[in-house]
C-alpha cells in the first residue's frame, strides 16, 4: 500500500542520499527535498478523504507469531503530525543545503535527516505499538547521529550521548510498558487496544504500566526531571534543532500520550501525574528561558516549557483541553521552527548567538529579523497571530479544568508571562537595540536560509487571520480521534469580552512589564538557577562517571595482574558452583568397569596427549611449550577422528596449525622467558588444575548415566537429504537448518577481529609491559 511506499522510499532516500550528494553536490538538497514535499502532498490528499471520521488502516506481516505487524493507523491525529513532519521536513532540507554549504559531510547529513523523518513518520502512522517502538528507537538513534554531527567537537559528542542515554533509558521503560499493555489489552494492534480501555484501566497492572509509559514519554518530551538533554542538544546544527527539538521529535512523547489517552486516560493517576509533570516543566522552562543569553538556549528552554503545557493539557483530559493541545502543537511547530531557523541564519551570517551583541540587527538582515519578530509575537500570543488563538484556547481549557482550575490557571498565567517576556527578549533588541558587535560583517542571508523562517512565521499570521483553514480540516479530526466522538471546532480571533480575553491581555501586559524589568528579574533568577547545579543534569554526570569508576575498580580487581590469577578466579568460582550443585542434586557417578575397554591406538593417542601436557608444563623455552601444546591439540583432533567427527577434526587441525603460527609471530615481542612463580604457587595451581579436571570428568560421568533421548538427531538424520539436499549433516545444520545462528557467529568473529585490530594498532610504540602473559 501507499503507506509502505512512503516508509520504504524514505529509508531508500536515506541510503542513497550520500551517493546523490557525491554525484550532484549543488542540486542534491533541492532534489532530496522533493521527497518530503511529495509526502506532504500525499498527506494533504489524505486529509480530504479522511474527513468521514474513520481511520485508514493497513497491515503487513512482520513477525506474525508475536502479533507484531507493520500496521498503519492513520486518523486525524496522525495526519496532523504527519503534515507537520513532512512540511517542516521539506523546508529544513532546503535550509540545510544553504546552511551546510561547503561541508563535505553534507550527504551524510541528508541521510541522517531522511532516516529521522522516516522514523518519525513511522511513529505517528504506526498501528502496532511494537512497530511504533521500533520507529521510536530509530528516532533516538538518528537524533544521536544528528546531534553529534560535528563529531570532532567534544561537546557535540557528549550532548549526543547524553540525549541517547536519557531517551534510550526511557525507551527501555516504554518497551516494558508497551509489552504489559499488550498483555493486558490482549493485542499489540492499536485498533484493538483503543477499544479495550476499560479492561486496561481496571487491571491491577495499570499503575505500573502507566508509570513505565510515562517515563518513556517524559524522557522523549523533555519533561522534568528528564529535560536536561534538550538544552545540551543545542550544539547541533540549526536545521537539526529546528526539526528535531522544536517541531517533531520532542513531540513524539506528547503524541504517544494523546494516542494512548483513550486507553490509559481518564483515571485519577493520569489526571494527577500528567498535569503535575506538565506544570513543573512549564514553569521551570519558562523561567529558565528568561535567564539565557544565548539565543538558542532561550528557545530550547521555552520549548521545554511549551512541552510542559502540552502534557498538562493532555492530562486535563477534556475535549476542550485536547483542542487546545492540538492547536498548540501546530502553533508551536510553526513559530518555534521559524525561530530556530532564523536563529541559525543569524548565527551563520554574523558568527554569534549572543543576544546582547546583536542589537539593531534589523538594519542588516531585514527579512530574517522580520520573520523572527513575527514568530516571537506568535509565541507571545499577540493578535492577530495564531499564537493568540492558541493562548486563548489554553486559558479557556484551564478555566474549565474542574477542581484544579485555579492552581492550573495561575501557574499557566505565570509561565505565559515569562514566555511573553522571553519573546520580547529575543525580538526587541534585534528591532530597536543598538550596539551591534559581531565577528562577521552582517548581511542578509540567501533565499534558502530565509525562506523557511519567513514561510513558517507567515503561516502563523495567515492561519491566525483565517483560522477556518485548519479548524475543521485538521484540528477537529485530531480531537475526534483522541476523544472518539464527533467534535465541533470553531476557531476565531474574537470571542467577545470574557474572562479569557481578560487573562490573555493581562498576560501580555504583565509580560511586557517583566520584559522591561528583565535585568532585575535575571539577577534574581540567577541565584535560583544556581540551584540547578545540583539538578538532574548533575545526577546524570555523577551516574555516568560512577559507572566508569565501578567498571575500572572491578576490572582491576578481577582481571588485573597475571593471567594465571584471572583463570584461577574463574576456575575456583566454577568449581564452587558446580561442586555445590553436585553435592545437592546430581546422582552418583557411574564409574566405568575395570579393566578399561580401550583399543591400543586409542590408548596411544591418550598417552601422546598426556605426554604433551607434561612437556608443556615443564618446558624451558617458549617454542617447546608451544610445540608441545600443538601436540596436545593434534592428539585431541585424532580422538575426534577416532570417534567419528571428521568435520570437527579438520577444523581442529587447521586451528592448531594457525595457533602455532600465531605464537611464532608474537614471540619476538614478549619479554624473556623466565620463571615467575614460586614453587608453592605452582603446587597450588597444579591442585587447582587437577580439581577442575576432576570436576569436568565427574560431570560427564554423571550425565552419561541418565537416559538421554534426543529428538533432534533422528530429525536431522532423516531430513538432511530431502529438505536440505546435503549428506553432511553437521554442515547442513550449520548452514541451512541453523543458518541464522551461523550468521550471528561470523558477525561476532568479525567484531572480535576488529577489536583485536584496534588494540594492536593503538599500542603502536608502547611496551606491552603491564600485562604478563605467562
Amino acid at each position, binding site marked *: 500500500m501507499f503507506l509502505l511506499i512512503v516508509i520504504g522510499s524514505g529509508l531508500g532516500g536515506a541510503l542513497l542520499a550520500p551517493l546523490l550528494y557525491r554525484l550532484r553536490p549543488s542540486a542534491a538538497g533541492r532534489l532530496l527535498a522533493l521527497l518530503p514535499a511529495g509526502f506532504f502532498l500525499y498527506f494533504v490528499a489524505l486529509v480530504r478523504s479522511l474527513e468521514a471520521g474513520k481511520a485508514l488502516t493497513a497491515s503487513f506481516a512482520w513477525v506474525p507469531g508475536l502479533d507484531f505487524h507493520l500496521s498503519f493507523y492513520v486518523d486525524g491525529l496522525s495526519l496532523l503530525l504527519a503534515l507537520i513532519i513532512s512540511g517542516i521536513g521539506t523546508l529544513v532540507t532546503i535550509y540545510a543545503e544553504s546552511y551546510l554549504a561547503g561541508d563535505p559531510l553534507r550527504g551524510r547529513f541528508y541521510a541522517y535527516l531522511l532516516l529521522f523523518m522516516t522514523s518519525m513518520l513511522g511513529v505517528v502512522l504506526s498501528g502496532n505499538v511494537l512497530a511504533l517502538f521500533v520507529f521510536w528507537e530509530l528516532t533516538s538513534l538518528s537524533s544521536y547521529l544528528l546531534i553529534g554531527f560535528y563529531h570532532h567537537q567534544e561537546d557535540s559528542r557528549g550532548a549526543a550521548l547524553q540525549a541517547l542515554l536519557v531517551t534510550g533509558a526511557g525507551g527501555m521503560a516504554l518497551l516494558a510498558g508497551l509489552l504489559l499493555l499488550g498483555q493486558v489489552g490482549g493485542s499489540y494492534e492499536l485498533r484493538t487496544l483503543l477499544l479495550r480501555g476499560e479492561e486496561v484501566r481496571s487491571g491491577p497492572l495499570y499503575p505500573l504500566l502507566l508509570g513505565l509509559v510515562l517515563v518513556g514519554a517524559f524522557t522523549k518530551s523533555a519533561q522534568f526531571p528528564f529535560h536536561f538533554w534538550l538544552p545540551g542538544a543545542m550544539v547541533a546544527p540549526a536545521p537539526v534543532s529546528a526539526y528535531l527539538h522544536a517541531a517533531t521529535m520532542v513531540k513524539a512523547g506528547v503524541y504517544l500520550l494523546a494516542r494512548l489517552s483513550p486507553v490509559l486516560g481518564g483515571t485519577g493517576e493520569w489526571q494527577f501525574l500528567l498535569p503535575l509533570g506538565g506544570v513543573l516543566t512549564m514553569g521551570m522552562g519558562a523561567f529558565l528561558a528568561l535567564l539565557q543569553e544565548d539565543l538558542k538556549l532561550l528557545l530550547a528552554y521555552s520549548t521545554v516549557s511549551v512541552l510542559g503545557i502540552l502534557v498538562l493539557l493532555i492530562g486535563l483530559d477534556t475535549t476542550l483541553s485536547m483542542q487546545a493541545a492540538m492547536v498548540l502543537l501546530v502553533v508551536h511547530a510553526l513559530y518555534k521552527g521559524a525561530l530556530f531557523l532564523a536563529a541559525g541564519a543569524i548565527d551563520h551570517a554574523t558568527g554569534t548567538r549572543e543576544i546582547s551583541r546583536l542589537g539593531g540587527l534589523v538594519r542588516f538582515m531585514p527579512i530574517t529579523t522580520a520573520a523572527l519578530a513575527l514568530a516571537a509575537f506568535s509565541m507571545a500570543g499577540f493578535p492577530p497571530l495564531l499564537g493568540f488563538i492558541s493562548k486563548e484556547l489554553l486559558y479557556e481549557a484551564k478555566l474549565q479544568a474542574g477542581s484544579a482550575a485555579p492552581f492550573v490557571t495561575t501557574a499557566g498565567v505565570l509561565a505565559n508571562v515569562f514566555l511573553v517576556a522571553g519573546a520580547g527578549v529575543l525580538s526587541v533588541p534585534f528591532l530597536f537595540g543598538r550596539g551591534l558587535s559581531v565577528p562577521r560583517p552582517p548581511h542578509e542571508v540567501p533565499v534558502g536560509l530565509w525562506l523557511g523562517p519567513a514561510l513558517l512565521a507567515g503561516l502563523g499570521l495567515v492561519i491566525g487571520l483565517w483560522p477556518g483553514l485548519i479548524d475543521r480540516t485538521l484540528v477537529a479530526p485530531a480531537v475526534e480521534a483522541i476523544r472518539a466522538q464527533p467534535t465541533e471546532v470553531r476557531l476565531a480571533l474574537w470571542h467577545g469580552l470574557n474572562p479569557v480575553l481578560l487573562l490573555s491581555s493581562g498576560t501580555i501586559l504583565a509580560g511586557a512589564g517583566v520584559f522591561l524589568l528583565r535585568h532585575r528579574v535575571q539577577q534574581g533568577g540567577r541565584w535560583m538557577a544556581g540551584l540547578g547545579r545540583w539538578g538532574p543534569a548533575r545526577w546524570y554526570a555523577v551516574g555516568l562517571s560512577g559507572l566508569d569508576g565501578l567498571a575500572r575498580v572491578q576490572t582491576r580487581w578481577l582481571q588485573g595482574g597475571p593471567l594465571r590469577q584471572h583463570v584461577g578466579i574463574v576456575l575456583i568460582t566454577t568449581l564452587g558452583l558446580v561442586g555445590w550443585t553436585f553435592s545437592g542434586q546430581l546422582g552418583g557417578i557411574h564409574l566405568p568397569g575395570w579393566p578399561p575397554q580401550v583399543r591400543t591406538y586409542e590408548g596411544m593417542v591418550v598417552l601422546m596427549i598426556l605426554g604433551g601436557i607434561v612437556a608443556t608444563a615443564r618446558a624451558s623455552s617458549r617454542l617447546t611449550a608451544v610445540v608441545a601444546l600443538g601436540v596436545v591439540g593434534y592428539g585431541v583432533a585424532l580422538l575426534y577422528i577416532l570417534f567419528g567427527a571428521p568435520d570437527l577434526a579438520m577444523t581442529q587441525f587447521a586451528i592448531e596449525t594457525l595457533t602455532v603460527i600465531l605464537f611464532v609471530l*608474537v614471540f619476538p615481542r614478549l619479554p624473556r622467558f623466565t620463571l615467575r612463580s614460586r614453587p608453592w604457587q605452582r603446587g597450588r595451581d597444579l591442585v587447582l588444575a587437577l580439581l577442575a579436571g576432576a570436576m569436568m570428568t565427574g560431570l560427564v560421568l554423571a550425565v552419561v548415566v541418565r537416559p538421554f533421548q534426543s529428538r533432534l538427531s533422528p530429525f536431522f538424520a532423516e531430513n538432511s537429504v530431502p529438505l536440505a539436499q546435503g549428506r553432511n549433516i553437521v554442515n547442513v545444520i550449520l548452514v541451512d537448518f541453523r543458518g541464522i545462528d551461523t550468521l550471528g557467529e561470523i558477525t561476532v568473529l568479525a567484531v572480535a577481529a576488529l577489536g583485536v585490530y584496534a588494540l*594492536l594498532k593503538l599500542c603502536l610504540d608502547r611496551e606491552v609491559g603491564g600485562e604478563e602473559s605467562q
Partner: protein
Amino acid sequence: MMPSLILATAVRYLLPLLLLLSIFDLLRGHNAPGGGFVGGLVAAAAFALYALAFDVPQARRVLRVDPLQLIGGGLLTAAASGLPALLQGRPFMTAWWGPWLLPVLGKMGTPVLFEIGVYLTVLGVTLLIIFSLAEG
C-alpha cells in the same frame, strides 16, 4: 622472520595448492566433511605461511584484497544469501536450490553462497589478526 630458503621455495608451490585445497574443502562441504569454516582456515594458513616465508607486505600483495574488505564482503554475501527467500515470500534464509547440476561444482543454491560468505569472513578475520600481529 628469519629468511629460510627451504620454506621460501616450498611455499611458492604450496600456496596455490593450499588455495586449491581450500576451495575444494569449501565446495564439498555439503555432502562430505568440509565447509566454509575449514576452507577459510586452510586458505588463511596458506597466506600466513607465505607471510612467514617472505614478509607481510609481499603476502598482502599476493592477497590483493585488504582483509577488512574480505570481512565486509563475506558478511554481505552471507546475509545476502538469505534475501532470495524473502523475495519469494518465505522466511529469511530459506534455501533456494537451482535445478541444474553443474559438472564440477555440483548443485548450486543459496547455501553455497552462504558458505562462500563464511569462507571469506573467516579468511579475512584470520588474516587481519595475523597480519596485524606480524607487522607490529
